[in-house]
């Protein structure tokens, strides 16, 4: 059993065309698997469906980005024509004058969008990892979100039925991993990574450090090893 890969390119080499991927970071570069995204751009798989909180925001908005830095986000996959569909909650720039790559491609009719409230997105991914195919949630009642979906009342309040999301691969940014695959995150970089790592058939993780088993304290493990398939050190 070897989970440690020596290069980002090797770790993403088998991702086929038309794969579904979960890729995140909340919005900024913290928690975004920038090296794996670049390797996937170089690898070239096309017609990808990407499940993500944003559709690539930091590169145009500087969201959560240190001064002078130029973060990579999934915008480079959109620019490279690899993306067929995005499932996201925050797909465009807050500022219409600085549109994201996704927004431009969307207006050209090149990519499809499924817009999902952020909590519903997180819960759908969590459900995908947890063997729950569908659940009722109050979020989106009285809005476009319920179009074509079943709604139902519990205790006088309306809820909408949402279905689980799963992926073929997740590209995850962690902090430390041990060689078994136990994983820890730093600060708010856990965000969507923490649920996405559970919902993909194959989770590929880039981390600051790969360490021996035991070097991450049991209480510092955020993601148990069973959710992690491939690890690459940055």
């Amino acid at each position, binding site marked *: 059993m070897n989970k440690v890969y020596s290069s980002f390119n090797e770790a993403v080499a088998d991702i086929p065309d038309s794969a579904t991927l979960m890729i995140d970071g909340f919005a900024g570069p913290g928690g975004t698997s920038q090296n794996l995204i670049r390797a996937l751009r170089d690898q070239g798989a096309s017609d990808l469906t990407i499940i993500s909180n944003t559709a690539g925001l930091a590169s145009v908005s500087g969201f959560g980005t240190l001064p002078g830095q130029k973060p990579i986000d999934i915008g480079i996959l959109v620019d490279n024509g690899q993306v067929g569909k995005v499932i996201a909650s925050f797909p465009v720039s807050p500022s219409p004058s600085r549109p994201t790559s996704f927004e431009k491609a969307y207006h050209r009719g090149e990519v499809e969008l499924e*817009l999902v409230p952020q909590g519903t997105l997180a819960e759908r991914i969590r459900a995908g990892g947890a063997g729950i195919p569908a659940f009722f949630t109050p979020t989106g009642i009285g809005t476009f*979100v319920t179009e074509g979906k079943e709604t139902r009342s519990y205790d006088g309040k309306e809820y909408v039925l949402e279905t689980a999301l799963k992926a073929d691969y997740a590209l995850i940014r962690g902090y430390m991993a041990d060689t078994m695959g136990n994983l820890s995150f730093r600060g708010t970089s856990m965000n969507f990574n923490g649920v996405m790592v559970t919902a993909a058939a194959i989770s590929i993780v880039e981390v600051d450090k790969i360490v021996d088993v035991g070097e991450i304290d049991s209480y510092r493990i955020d993601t148990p090893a069973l959710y992690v398939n491939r690890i690459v050190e940055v």
Partner: protein
Amino acid sequence: MVAERLPREVIAMRVAQELQDGDVVNLGIGIPSLCSQFVPEGRTIFYHSESGVLNYGPMAEEGKEDQDLINASGQFLAPVKGMSFFDSGAAFAMIRGGHIDVTVLGALQVSSKGDLANWMIPSRGIGNVGGAMDLAVGAKKVIVSMEHIDREGNPKIVDDCTFPLTCPACVDMIVTDIAVISVQNEGLVLHETAPGWSAADVQAETDAKLIIASDLKNVSL
């Protein structure tokens, strides 16, 4: 009607008075994010952000910013004692599960029934939902803080929202640069006006019909 409008900081100060000792509070982008600076002394507030953090405090000092420590506005946070981190599934379980006492959100439009529209300007053809729908439906109290009219001078407090809804009948209170309004079963009640603004002045900038509170007063801080 040449009286001055309240500056953003004063709107935030007025909202901050609503935050009670022990409250769990989620602040949206813009004016809402300013509120934490103005909470009255002696109140412990737990700030929650959907970026996956509870109990954040001040922003990071210059030169000490950390990309792994942000709130949902993308601001860099200082590490503080008692801060905890969690994933987005847990962050929204807190919101949807009713564990947030107060959320303060911006708005494009609020209706007389407390409907909120804050996620899309229809002319753009695309928009960001983000966490607003979850916060609007999940928080125990929803306060909108915003300018009373938009940049073109159109009233933002309307009979019925013309913009796509974020959540129907969710707003409890509206604090603007000229008024403090509560949403009641009988409609919108005007409680406070900015100094120099009469109830009629506020009504003139408001599409929806306002009910004047019997104890109408000036905004006080």
